[in-house]
């Protein structure tokens, strides 16, 4: 993180941005309050890391070193890195490609395509893996690669699509008139403008792959999370598990650092005003069919395959005559939605100061705080869950195993999704606009409410929805932290698949996907609005 910060401060672009900010009157108090809140928020987000530290310090050093230096650890680490790189690359290519088709072309039925492209987010990767194992012979590396890729592509597609909306098309138009091919013009002019958004999505994908155990276990591809789970399962050694988890945390830090380097300073080519310049979308002509087929592939693999598998079990179930009471499924759905909404609000509260600070007052501190909030995402859910058990019992024992602590856990677990959204959205608001408002006599608070928040809100809202969506699917931490006797759709699904009652589990999985489709579709509202706007304008 230190390296990240020094790199950023050396960047000439950043210097230019800070010079731009120096032009505005400084607000020491606002900055102080913001920094203090960001430090507190990042501190809460770093609970899992603190926990790892406490456990490792208390560990039998010889045992930990023996576990870390054996050949098997290296093998698992290599598998993890290979899978992460492969999935991240595939998601980058598929996500940017989809975003371009959805945002820049005259594809028939684009609004529907945007919604369809978001659907994979509604499917937990363990459910998708289950479907693929049930219906196809794909296993091992390729199985894990396919499932994790198709489930995560929208994490790249959506932010890229949003960034394309705000990108200034003038650059690409100029490049085209100067004789550049369409692809080259895109790569040289538009890509640099959407790159930060795309890479932020790729970072979320990569961290998810590091932490995933459900899908890789079902696909029997042995990665680092296997070693961590084996420490719990066969040795009952949470200390060893924590020590092994530090390797994943280190990989997470490396990813966050790499993303910062690649992202560079946010290029403010885009401007809220210029984006309103309407540009005719690319005509696909006969290629429309190919584009449609391409866009269908990912949702089909992520949603279609598991749905088909679940329906097969559901119909097999109907013949044996056992029923799942609809009221139980409904009750679980209700608690799932309520807890996820609570988690999303917690994430928003924690993400606002961190994201605002990172967007408006760049410094080593803001970079470090932002990075710290990301690393927990690289850790398996059971480790994060235990860290919050530890925190809750030590600090607020009265809230232990309450819905409040579970919602808080969701907020901490999926905070990066909201932090990235807040930072990116606020960065998109041109400081010039705020200056104009200020020069017209508006107070700082009024500028924030009427200008900054208004423009940034759709993006921030999308981040919050993403947190809610992910929280609905969360399993390992939920099992540890939920109030005794409370079920969510994910825990019921787990309970029934544990006892191989797949027929009974199918309704829960179907309802979970159905419930998650809600926020997934809402996520696309912004993008759909853009499409409509463009069409009306064209």
């Amino acid at each position, binding site marked *: 993180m230190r390296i990240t910060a020094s790199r950023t401060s050396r960047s000439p672009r950043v210097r230019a941005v800070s010079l731009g900010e120096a032009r505005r009157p400084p607000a020491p108090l606002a900055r102080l309050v913001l920094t203090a809140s960001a430090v507190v928020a990042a501190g809460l987000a770093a609970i899992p890391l603190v926990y790892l530290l406490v456990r490792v*310090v*208390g*560990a*039998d*050093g*010889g*045992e*930990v*070193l*023996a576990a870390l230096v*054996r050949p*098997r650890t290296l*093998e698992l680490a290599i598998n993890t890195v290979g899978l992460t790189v492969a999935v991240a690359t595939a998601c980058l290519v598929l996500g940017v490609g989809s975003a371009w088709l959805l945002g820049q072309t005259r594809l028939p039925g684009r609004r529907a395509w945007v919604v369809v492209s978001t659907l994979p987010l509604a499917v937990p990767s363990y459910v998708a893996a289950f479907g693929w*194992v049930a219906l196809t*012979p794909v296993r091992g590396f390729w199985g894990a690669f396919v499932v994790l890729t198709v489930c995560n592509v929208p994490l790249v597609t959506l932010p890229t699509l949003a960034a394309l909306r705000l990108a200034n098309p003038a650059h690409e138009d100029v490049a085209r008139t100067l004789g550049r091919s369409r692809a080259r013009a895109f790569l040289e002019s538009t890509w640099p403008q959407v790159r930060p958004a795309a890479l932020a999505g790729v970072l979320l994908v990569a961290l998810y792959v590091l932490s995933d155990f459900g899908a890789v*276990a*079902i696909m*029997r591809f*042995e990665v680092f999370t*296997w*070693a961590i*789970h*084996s420490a*719990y*399962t*066969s*040795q*009952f050694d*949470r*200390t060893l*598990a924590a020590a092994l988890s530090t390797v994943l945390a280190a990989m997470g830090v490396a990813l966050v650092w790499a993303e910062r380097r690649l992202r560079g300073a946010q290029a403010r080519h885009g401007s809220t005003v210029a984006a309103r310049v309407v540009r005719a979308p690319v005509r696909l002509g006969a290629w429309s069919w190919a584009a449609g087929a391409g866009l269908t592939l990912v949702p089909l693999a992520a949603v279609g395959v598991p749905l088909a598998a679940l329906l097969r079990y559901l119909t*097999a179930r109907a*013949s*044996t005559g056992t029923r799942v009471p609809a009221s139980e499924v409904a009750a679980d759905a209700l608690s799932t939605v309520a807890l996820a909404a609570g988690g999303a609000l917690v994430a928003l509260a924690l993400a606002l100061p961190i994201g605002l600070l990172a967007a408006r007052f760049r410094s080593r501190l803001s970079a470090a705080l932002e990075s710290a909030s990301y690393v927990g995402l690289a850790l398996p859910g*059971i480790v994060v869950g*235990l860290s919050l*058990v*530890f925190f809750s*019992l030590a600090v607020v*024992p009265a809230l*232990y*195993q309450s819905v409040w602590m579970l919602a808080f856990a969701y907020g901490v677990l999926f905070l990066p999704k909201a932090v990235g959204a807040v930072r990116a959205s606020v960065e998109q608001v041109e400081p010039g606009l705020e200056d104009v408002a200020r020069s017209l006599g508006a107070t700082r608070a009024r500028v924030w409410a009427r200008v900054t928040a208004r423009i940034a809100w759709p993006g921030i809202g999308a981040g919050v929805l993403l947190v809610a969506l992910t929280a609905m699917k969360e399993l*390992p931490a939920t*099992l*540890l932290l939920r109030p*005794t*006797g409370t079920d969510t759709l994910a*825990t019921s699904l787990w*309970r*029934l*698949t*544990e*006892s*191989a*009652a*797949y*027929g009974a589990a199918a309704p829960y999985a179907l309802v979970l996907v159905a419930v998650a489709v809600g926020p997934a579709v809402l996520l696309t509202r912004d993008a759909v609005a853009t499409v409509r706007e463009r069409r009306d304008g064209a």
Partner: protein
Amino acid sequence: MALRRALAAFSLPVLALAVAGCSPESPAPASSAPQASSDAVADGTFTLYSGREEELVQPLIDQFTVDTGIAVEVRYAGTTELAALLQEEGDASPADVFLSQDAGALGAVAKAGLFALLPEAVSAAVDPGFTSTDGSWVGVTGRARVLAYDSEALDADEVPASVLDLTDPAWNGQVGIAPTNASFQSFVTALRVLEGEDVAREWLDGMVANDVQTYPKNTAILEAVQAGEIQIGLINHYYWYQALAELGEDGMRARLSFPEAGDAGAIVNVTGAGLLAGASDDADALAFIEYLVSDAGQRYFVDTTYEYPLVAGLDVPDGLPALADLTNTELDLSDLDTLGDTTALLTEVGLL
């Protein structure tokens, strides 16, 4: 534990020096565990952490509540996760009773000094060898290790009578195991105890060389056999019966074969329950553990989960060989808690 650490320090002096500053938590000796109190308090409710599945256990708990009027708050999660959770919670745990899928988790919680000692009447209900040696937990049911085979690929008499034969090239790529599964590891421990370290290592190496397929758990193995992906899977017997209840006779492509008596592949593992130290004076919690080893409790497991009863005088589920036929006189089940060495061996051959 201390001896192992000392040996590790001896063999790795440099590493030991490097970490001399770290002081590992030492487990509380079992002797300091509180004894379940005779003048216990009953408030009509207690909290159970169940590592056993809700589908299987909840009806029994409901029956217990009807019979005794005691309400039970149940927290369901995997046995492994609950053992980790109990260790993390320590004295602050809201749990009064831990119901576990396997003896290893109970041993780990006992070793951490978190269990109260059970009254003699409870711990003596189950034959030694199927329960804890010090009364820190009690065995509840038994589960036999079996071979599930693909009936479309094999006839019953083609299935090997001993797991040792599975290293034969004829089974290349055709056998499924779950190396992280506690029951599988107990079997490997039994193999080490019965046949010696060299045979165990040779067998594991042979299995790896024979392209043994690894799965995260028993159900995944059974599904693979059902799907014809592998011909033989090493699982616990009752998974097959559960699948039978779900899919019906016609849905069962997999069939069961019991290895011959005396084979390491034919051992019996136990599930069990323990009373948390903080609940040593909780009459309700103790009543539940007593219920688990009562006739009613034992019969429930026989009829519903097809497991072996551990209290004498009850019939085994239909179609299963008698527990006595599977009990290996050369094997003391208390030896099976030397799991650390087994995981080391599994790690060495590259299965963990």
